[in-house]
């Protein structure tokens, strides 16, 4: 009792709380809470998982040790901070702070953290078994595999070798966990423990060990599915996991509730403390249950999908790990929010509703402080909470709509980026990609190889040449055409002309290629028939390199110039007609008007489109050159996309072509950014 300096002598206090003072006392603490959250061991552990997932090399054992030490230290510090610093709050202008023995407190924190770690460690050991099996499989000790398969087959075999060990591994931490939670109850008579229990309910109340369990479950899930012999086991494991989670979600709040009930038992004042605790624990319990119910099936589905599709495990290791780290973060966030908003579940009962003799407050001085603090926060948070709930009630359907596109983008746009690493690793299709060591030259071996081949150098040259010509000749074409159309005086005729000009854009390159054959073919093409009649020998664009390039560029202009005018015409329509009138009055000629008004007005549009065009200077269209090419002129027609198609998809040289692809993407990105920043420097708007 002497640890606290407080005299709750003026009642009712709720009436005397000013908001400004409340904020003063309250706000700085959020920063500390965030610090505690960051110090919590999950961040180092998460970093470790990611590193292991990516590299899987023994040197990371050191990283593991560092992460472990950091984790222990960080989490101890976080709990310690929570007890000593965070719960300092002013009531009635007086500061209540924790004044217990600092060393003792720290040691206690360390003890609980270590206990937590032991539970985690046991889970990891459970996972290592599967990982060892996995390794054995890849080093092709198939015999051991067969033996172990035989041992595992059959009902008894399954029970003995799969279900029982896992159950054992699952049950031990539960016992340990319950033990951890029992300690404060046993020693509740001491103020220190009571204080700890109080602190424990503050930020991450009953979830401490649930987090460990979550991680352990996912860890086991990962290691189990990475070995395909563990197929059925995954299901067993996950079912166990579900049971454990449900049990924990229900039991732990109950324990907490009971514990706090004991603390204040007999001297409870009007249910302040109990009401808040019970409501809060129920709330959190439900939240966890809900999250777990979502999380477990997701892991299950992914696992089964993975097993069925024989996905390279390591990539999905990463995915799963990322997924559950994400979920951990969500857990943390939810618990943070819950801590922030929980107090709304407590009803502020005005003390006047039932007169309580002053003595009862004296007896439960400490409990009183608690409820006092909580009700203060409650008032403060009420408005914020209501705002948030209101927002979510209005907007949750929008998030629901976003789910599907976001999943699509992740799966078909972001996950392929994980496969990029294949371009920097040695060629090995037996082992999962993350286990493969880096290719030569710090991973750039494939790219250097590509540069050594003549095909690639030719493809790069052709890409640059064709895109460069397109840029120089093809880019101005729609501008000129748009100005021409704009100058056209006959409106109906203009509309018809536009419709016709748009037409080539709707033709596929296969069809354009067949048109080109009909027009330019060496013997019976339309142009050549005509030229032959004139006595000329005709042209051979399908046989001669130079003529093919000219045809390629011209067909590009033919196809896209009309379509390109749309944007420019819209921009011209946006130019203020008063400019033209003023210019006519001043006697400007048609050319002067085009030059000084139209082109100036078009400048922003031109710049933006130019940036986009530069951004794809080494990017290459596939269908256009592919449809137009033939074996005679491959020396100029084979661009990078065709190189990737032939070497990669037809020739199965995946690492080489993936490296080329990423080279292309990166160069494009660099060009885009450079062009964009240049445009901005000159004073234009840019695209990014």
């Amino acid at each position: 009792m002497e640890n606290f300096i407080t005299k709750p002598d003026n009642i009712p206090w709720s009436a005397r709380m000013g908001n400004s003072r409340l904020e003063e006392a309250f706000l700085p603490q959020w920063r500390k809470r965030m610090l505690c959250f960051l110090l919590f061991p999950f961040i180092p552990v998460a970093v470790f998982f990611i590193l292991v997932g990516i590299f899987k090399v023994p040197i990371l054992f050191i990283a593991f040790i560092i992460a472990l030490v950091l984790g222990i230290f960080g989490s101890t510090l976080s709990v310690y901070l929570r007890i000593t610093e965070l719960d300092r709050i002013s009531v009635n202008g007086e500061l209540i702070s924790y004044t217990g023995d600092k060393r003792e407190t720290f040691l206690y924190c360390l003890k609980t953290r270590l206990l937590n770690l032991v539970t985690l460690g046991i889970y990891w050991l459970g996972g290592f078994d599967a990982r060892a099996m996995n390794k054995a499989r890849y080093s092709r000790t198939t015999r051991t595999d067969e033996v172990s398969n035989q041992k595992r087959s059959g009902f008894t075999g399954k029970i003995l070798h799969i279900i029982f060990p896992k159950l054992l591994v699952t049950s031990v931490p539960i016992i340990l966990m319950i033990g951890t939670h029992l300690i404060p109850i046993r020693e509740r008579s001491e103020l220190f423990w009571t204080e700890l229990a109080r602190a424990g309910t503050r930020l991450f109340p009953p979830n401490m060990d649930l987090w460990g369990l979550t991680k352990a479950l996912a860890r086991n899930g990962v290691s189990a599915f990475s070995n395909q012999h563990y197929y059925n086991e995954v299901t067993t494991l996950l079912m166990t996991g579900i049971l454990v989670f449900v049990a924990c979600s229900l039991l732990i709040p109950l324990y907490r509730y009971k514990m706090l009930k004991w603390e204040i038992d007999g001297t409870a004042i009007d249910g302040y403390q109990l009401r808040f605790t019970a409501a809060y624990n129920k709330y959190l319990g439900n939240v966890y249950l809900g999250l777990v119910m979502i999380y477990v099936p997701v892991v299950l589905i992914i696992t089964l999908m993975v097993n069925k599709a024989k996905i390279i495990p390591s990539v999905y290791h990463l995915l799963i790990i990322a997924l559950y780290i994400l979920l951990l973060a969500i857990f943390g966030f939810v618990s943070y929010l819950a801590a922030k908003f929980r107090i709304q579940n407590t009803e502020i009962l005005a003390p006047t509703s039932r007169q309580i003799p002053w003595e009862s407050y004296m007896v439960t001085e400490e409990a009183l402080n608690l409820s006092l603090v909580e009700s203060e926060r409650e008032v403060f948070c009420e408005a914020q909470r209501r705002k948030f709930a209101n927002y979510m009630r209005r907007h949750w359907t929008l998030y629901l709509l976003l789910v599907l596109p976001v999943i699509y983008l992740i799966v078909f746009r972001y996950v392929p980026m994980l496969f990029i690493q294949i371009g920097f690793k040695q060629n090995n299709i037996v082992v999962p990609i993350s286990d493969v060591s880096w290719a030569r030259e710090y991973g750039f071996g494939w790219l250097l190889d590509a540069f050594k081949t003549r095909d690639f150098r030719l493809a790069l040259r052709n890409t640059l040449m064709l895109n460069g010509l397109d840029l120089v000749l093809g880019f101005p074409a729609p501008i000129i055409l748009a100005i021409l159309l704009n100058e056209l005086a006959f409106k109906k005729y203009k509309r018809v002309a536009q419709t016709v000009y748009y037409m080539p854009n709707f033709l596929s390159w296969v069809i354009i290629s067949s048109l080109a054959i009909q027009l330019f073919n060496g013997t019976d093409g339309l142009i050549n028939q005509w030229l032959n009649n004139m006595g000329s020998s005709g042209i051979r664009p399908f046989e001669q390199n130079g003529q093919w390039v000219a045809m390629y560029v011209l067909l590009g202009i033919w196809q896209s110039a009309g379509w390109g005018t749309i944007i420019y015409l819209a921009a011209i329509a946006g130019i203020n007609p008063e400019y033209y009138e003023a210019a006519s009055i001043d006697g400007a000629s048609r050319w002067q008007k085009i030059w000084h008004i139209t082109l100036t007005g078009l400048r922003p549009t031109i710049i933006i489109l130019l940036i986009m065009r530069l951004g794809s200077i080494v990017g290459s269209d596939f269908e256009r050159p592919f449809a137009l090419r033939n074996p005679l002129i491959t020396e100029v027609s084979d661009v990078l996309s065709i190189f990737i198609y032939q070497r990669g998809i037809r020739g199965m040289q995946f690492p080489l072509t993936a490296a080329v692809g990423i080279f292309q993407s990166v160069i494009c990105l660099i060009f885009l950014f450079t062009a964009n920043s240049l445009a901005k420097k000159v004073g234009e708007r840019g695209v990014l």
Partner: protein
Amino acid sequence: MIKSKKTKAADYFIAFVCFLLILVCIIPLFSVFARSLSSPSALMRKEVFLWPVGFNLDAYVRVLSSNKYTWSLIWTAMLTVMGVILSLFMTIILAYPLTYDNLKGRKFFNAFAIFTMYFGAGTIPMYLLLKQVGLLNRWPVLVIPFCLSVFNMIIMRSFMYSIPESLKESAEIDGAGPIRILISIYLPLCKPVLATLSLFYAVGRWNGFSDALYFLSPAQERYYPIQLLLYQLIQNVTSVDPSQEAFTQPGISETLQMASVMIATIPILMVYPFLQRYFVTGATLGAEKG
């Protein structure tokens, strides 16, 4: 405005240039059309220029009676319909929430989508992914992996932005939720942009062949879209129908090819002039900032 005689002459000159350009656009297609309607012997004698010689519809009849070709037409039409529906659905449900200015995380989702427009993993990683998820060499590969175009999403979003906010607000006051607002207010007002995007997606699907070339093996030939079949036909890789030797005979083969090309082109040429009013706005919206 008083116009001098000189400027009028210039106007006629511009009109003449535009007319020449119209010819440039039309003649190639028209010559193919003429050849497809000509008799093979006239073609062999190099008599056909811009007008069919020995007019007949044999080639069209023969192409359309080829099972392989008609199946491919029907199949591509089915793919196009499926693709357009799926793509429009995805585009709408991505674009619509992003029009809510007060949506928390809007900037993140926006950046999340737009980043993929500027940086892609490339063909090979996509190929490996499709292999891993088991889509490779199955026909859904032509529909699912490319069903959402972020660029088109931006067009959609820009259009939705132009719908007055007050409509949304009044509906909210009446108690409508976001989905209700989308269905009852936004979608009816979005008809022009829906038409545009349908056209873009449909043309993309109808004209595209690289995805089939990449991700379908020759064993899956029955799922080839029409353009890939045409490509093979033009490159003389295969005949449309193994039973119809005519596809490899000179003269006859040419009219048949031309007829095939025309049949694959006509659907789009029939549709696009009617949608012109819409796609002009659509294409303009796309040029606005992403």
